[in-house]
C-alpha cells in the first residue's frame, strides 16, 4: 500500500474552514445510518464520546475495551482540567487566542486548521458536559470557576477538584452506557484488539483476543475508529496506567497506517520522583499546583539542611528567574528541561537528589491553609500516601516523567488515517498539539474528536459505501490475520526462556529514557538504535511466559504489548535522529540557543514526518507533510 499524505484541509479563511466543511460535507440520511456498522476501539474520552454520539445518530456501534468496564480508561486519571475559550472571566480570551496559544505551545509544528477547529469546538464541550451533569467547580454565585494552566496568560481551565478527567470520563461513559442500555451499542469488555484487517484497500474490521478465554475472533464493520490512547509507557516508567500500550496503533501501522512524529513525547515536569528500582509507575502531581506552588532548588549543590531551613537568598526560584513573564507556569517542555538542568547541575533535592522543590508555603501564608487545602487536598493526600511526607509542612519533591505523546497515527482533517475507513481519535492520533501539548488540552482534544468532529467527518466516507453490506468476517483476510495473531501469542508461550516481560520492558524503558528522553543527541540515538534491536532479539529468545493461552493470563498480555513497544521504540529513535532540530518535547542537544533553549529549523523541518511500515522495523520510509501557516507567523517561542 503506497502512502499519500493528503491533509484534506478545507478551503476558505482559517476561521471559516470548519463551518464550510460542515456546510458542504456529504451526509448520511437517518434511514441509512442504521445500515452502517462502526467499530470503536477504546472507551476513554475520545472512544466513549464517539461511541455515544455515533449511536445517538443511529449508526450500529460496537465498542471494545480491554478493561472490565469502559469507565476504567486512563482518561480517568487526568487531574487538572480542560481548556475552553469561553472567556467567562473576561480576561481577554477568545477562540483565536486559545488557537494561537496551542500552536505556539506546540512550537509551530501542529496543523493550523486542526488546531483552530479544536479551539472552536472547545466551547461546545463545556456546554455539553455541564448538560450531562459534570459537577465542575463553581463560584459562590453559581457560575463556573476557572484557573490558569501553563503556557497561557488567561484563566480558561475548567476543573472538578483534582479529578477533572474522572468526572469527564464518567460523563462520557454515562452517555455511552445509556446507548448500551438502549441496545444501540454492543459493548465488548475484557477484549483486546490485536490486528486490523483490510480488504481491497479499505479497512474492513479488526481481530480481537478475548482476555478471559484467549479466543481470537474477527469483527467486521464499514469503518473502524481507533481511540486507544498514547504510547508513553514505552519509557516503562510513566504517569500512564499500567495497561496503556501502543498495540492497537502499532498493529494499524503495520497494516498501512502512517505513524507521525513519534519523537514528540511529553515529559511532564511535576511528577513524584522515582524512589527505587522496583518502582512500577510514576505519579503525576497536577500542573494546577503550579498556580500556587513555587519551584526552587538550593543554590548550593552541597546543601544538606531541610527545605524550610534554607534561607530565601540561598534558594534559586529558577523558573521565576529565567522566565519572569510566565514564571512557574512556563509550558511543560520548558519547565521539564529547566528541572533537568538543575538536577544535572547537582542541585537536586531528596534522598536520591533526583527532584526539585514545589513549595506551597508562600501560598499558605497569602491565602491561608484552608483555601490551599480546599484547592489541592486530594493531591496533597495522594502525595502523602506515596511519599509519607506532608506537603503542608515541607515542600513537595517533583521531577519530570513521561506523561503524554503528541505523536501518533497520521490523520487528515477528517481524522482518517492513510488506510481508508480507518479513523483515529484522541491521544492516539498526532493531529492537534504539534511538538508539545499545553496543560488541560488533552481532555479538550479527546472530547472534541469524539463528540464534535468524528461524528461529522466519518459521514463522507460512509456515504460512499451506501448499500454495500458489512464486510464478510469469514473473508480469507480475516482468517489469515487470526492465524497470524494466534501464532504470535502461542510463540510467546513457547519460548521458555528465563526473563519476564516486565524485565524486558524495564530494560527497553531505560534505553529510551536515556537516549530518547528529555535530551537527545545523534550519538545517543545511534546507540539506542543498536541496543534496542539487540534487546528485542534477546526478548525473542529468552522470554518466559508462564500459564496458558486459554484463561486470563496477564503475563501473556504484557508480552504482546512489550513486543510492540520494541518496534515503536526503534521508530521513535529513528524519527528523533532524522529530525535535526529542537522543537517542543523533542530537544536535540546539537540544536540549542546560547542560553539552552530549543532551536527550531523552520526552513528544513516545518513538516510532519509520517513513517511507512516496510516489514523491517529498522528501515521504515519517511514521508513529509509540509505545514502551511496561513495566519500564524513563525516566531521563536519565548516565555521570558
Amino acid at each position: 500500500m503506497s502512502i499519500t499524505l493528503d491533509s484534506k484541509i478545507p478551503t476558505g479563511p482559517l476561521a471559516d474552514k470548519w463551518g464550510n466543511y460542515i456546510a458542504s460535507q456529504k451526509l448520511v440520511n437517518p434511514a441509512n445510518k442504521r445500515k452502517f456498522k462502526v467499530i470503536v476501539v477504546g472507551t476513554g474520552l475520545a472512544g466513549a464520546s464517539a461511541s455515544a454520539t455515533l449511536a445517538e445518530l443511529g449508526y450500529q456501534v460496537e465498542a471494545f475495551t480491554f478493561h472490565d468496564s469502559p469507565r476504567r480508561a486512563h482518561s480517568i486519571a487526568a487531574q487538572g482540567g480542560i481548556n475552553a475559550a469561553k472567556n467567562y472571566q473576561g480576561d481577554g480570551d477568545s477562540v483565536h487566542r486559545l488557537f494561537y496559544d496551542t500552536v505556539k505551545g506546540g512550537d509551530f509544528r501542529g496543523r493550523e486548521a486542526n488546531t483552530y477547529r479544536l479551539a472552536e469546538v472547545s466551547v461546545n464541550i463545556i456546554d455539553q458536559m455541564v448538560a450531562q451533569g459534570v459537577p465542575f467547580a463553581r463560584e459562590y454565585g453559581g457560575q463556573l470557576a476557572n484557573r490558569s494552566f501553563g503556557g497561557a496568560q488567561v484563566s480558561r481551565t475548567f476543573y472538578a477538584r483534582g479529578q477533572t478527567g474522572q468526572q469527564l470520563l464518567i460523563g462520557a461513559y454515562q452517555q455511552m452506557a445509556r446507548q448500551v442500555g438502549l441496545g444501540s451499542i454492543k459493548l465488548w469488555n475484557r477484549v483486546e484488539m490485536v490486528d486490523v484487517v483490510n480488504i481491497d484497500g479499505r479497512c474492513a474490521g479488526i481481530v480481537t483476543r478475548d482476555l478471559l478465554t484467549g479466543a481470537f475472533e474477527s469483527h467486521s464493520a464499514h469503518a473502524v475508529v481507533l481511540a486507544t490512547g498514547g504510547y508513553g509507557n514505552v519509557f516503562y516508567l510513566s504517569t500512564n496506567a499500567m495497561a496503556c500500550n501502543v498495540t492497537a496503533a502499532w498493529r494499524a501501522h503495520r497494516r498501512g497506517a502512517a505513524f507521525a512524529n513519534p519523537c514528540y513525547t511529553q515529559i511532564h515536569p511535576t511528577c513524584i520522583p522515582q524512589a527505587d528500582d522496583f518502582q512500577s509507575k510514576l505519579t503525576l502531581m497536577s500542573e494546577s499546583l503550579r498556580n500556587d506552588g513555587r519551584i526552587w532548588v538550593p543554590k548550593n549543590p552541597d546543601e544538606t539542611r531541610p527545605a524550610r531551613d534554607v534561607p530565601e537568598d540561598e534558594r534559586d526560584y529558577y523558573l521565576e528567574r529565567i522566565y519572569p513573564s510566565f514564571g512557574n507556569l512556563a509550558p511543560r517542555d520548558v519547565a521539564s528541561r529547566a528541572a533537568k538542568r538543575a538536577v544535572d547541575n547537582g542541585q537536586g533535592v531528596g534522598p536520591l537528589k533526583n527532584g526539585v522543590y514545589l513549595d506551597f508555603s508562600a501560598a499558605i501564608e497569602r491565602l491561608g491553609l484552608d483555601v490551599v487545602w480546599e484547592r489541592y487536598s486530594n493531591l496533597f493526600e495522594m502525595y502523602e500516601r506515596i511519599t509519607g511526607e506532608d506537603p503542608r509542612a515541607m515542600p513537595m519533591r517533583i521531577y519530570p516523567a513521561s506523561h503524554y505523546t503528541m505523536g501518533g497515527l497520521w490523520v487528515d482533517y477528517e481524522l482518517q488515517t492513510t488506510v481508508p475507513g480507518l479513523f483515529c481519535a484522541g491521544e492516539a492520533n498526532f493531529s492537534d498539539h504539534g511538538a508539545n501539548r499545553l496543560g488541560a488540552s488533552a481532555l479538550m482534544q479527546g472530547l472534541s474528536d469524539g463528540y464534535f468532529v468524528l461524528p461529522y467527518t466519518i459521514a463522507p466516507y460512509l456515504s460512499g459505501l451506501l448499500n454495500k453490506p458489512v464486510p464478510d468476517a469469514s473473508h480469507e483476510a480475516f482468517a489469515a490475520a487470526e492465524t497470524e495473531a494466534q501464532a504470535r501469542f502461542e510463540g510467546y508461550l513457547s519460548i521458555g526462556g528465563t526473563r519476564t516481560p516486565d524485565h524486558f520492558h524495564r530494560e527497553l524503558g531505560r534505553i529510551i529514557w536515556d537516549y530518547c528522553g528529555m535530551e537527545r543527541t545523534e550519538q545517543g540515538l545511534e546507540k539506542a538504535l543498536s541496543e534496542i534491536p539487540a534487546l528485542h532479539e534477546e526478548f525473542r529468545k529468552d522470554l518466559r511466559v508462564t500459564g496458558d493461552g486459554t484463561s486470563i493470563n496477564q503475563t501473556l498480555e504484557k508480552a504482546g504489548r512489550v513486543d510492540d513497544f520494541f518496534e515503536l521504540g526503534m521508530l521513535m529513535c529513528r524519527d528523533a535522529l532524522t529530525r535535526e532540530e529542537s522543537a517542543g518535547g523533542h530537544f536535540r542537544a546539537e540544536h540549542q540557543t546560547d542560553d539552552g533553549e530549543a532551536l527550531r529549523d523552520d526552513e528544513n523541518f516545518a513538516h510532519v514526518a509520517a513513517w511507512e511500515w516496510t516489514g523491517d522495523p529498522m528501515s521504515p520510509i519517511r514521508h513529509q507533510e509540509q505545514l502551511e501557516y496561513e495566519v500564524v507567523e513563525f516566531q521563536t517561542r519565548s516565555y521570558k
Partner: protein
Amino acid sequence: MSHLKNITLKVWRQSGPDDAGRFESYTVDEISDEASFLEMLDILNERLIEEGQEAITFDHDCREGICGTCSLMIDGQAHGPQRGTATCQLHMRKFDSGAEIVIEPWRAAAFPVIKDLMVDRAPFDRIIESGGFITAGTGGAPDANLIPIPKPVADASMDAAACIGCGACVAACPNGAANLFTGAKIAHLNLLPQGQAERFQRTEAMVDTMDHYFGSCTNHGECEAACPKEISIDVIALMNSDYLKGKFKNRKSLSRT
C-alpha cells in the same frame, strides 16, 4: 528508606470460576517500605514467573487511586488497613517486619471470581445502563453558565461523583449490598438541576436493577468505612427517599394512561 523483612503472604489462588480455590503461602524476604502493596505483588510475580510458576492474577491499572480497577481484601479489610485509600495507594510502610498478610478477592455473590484475586463487577455497569445518566444527546446544549448551580450543591454532587466504582462497599457489606455505589451515582445526578427531569424514574430504574443483582442494605455502615473515597452513607438516605417519592409520583405509569 528502610526495609521490612520476612513477610508471609497467604494469597487466594483459584484457577477459574469453577475451581474451589485455596490459600497458598509465599514468603517475601525483604521489601522496601517505599514500595506500594501492588509493587510487592509485582516483585513476587516476577519471581514466580522466573521459577516457572503462574503469576498471581489481580486487577489493577492507574495505581493512582482513581480508576477503581484494583480491589483485594487485605487481612479481611477491603483495600487494606489505611482509611480512605485504595489498594494501589497503600504502601508497605503501613506494615511491619514479620507480618502475615492474608490477601483475598472481593467476596460477594454478585462479583464471581474470574481467577485468583480478580472478580467480575459487571453488575455495576448494568446499574448505570438502567438509568445512571442524564439524557443529553450531543449538540444543542445551552450555554454552560445559563443555569447557576450554588457552590454547596455542586460540591455535594461532586462528593458523591467521586465514587470510583471499585466495589469495596459491596465487598465490605455483610449482605453484599451495593447501596453505597448506587446511592452515590444517584446523588451525583439527582442533586444537580440538570438531573431533575429524570430524577425519579432514574432512581426507580437503578434501585430495581441493583435489587436484581445485590443483597439488601441493613444499615451496617461497613461500606462507608471501606470506601476509598470516604463517600457518606447519607447518599443511601437520599436514594431511599427519592425511591419512595418516585413510587408515589410514578410518572412512568401516569404517562401510560
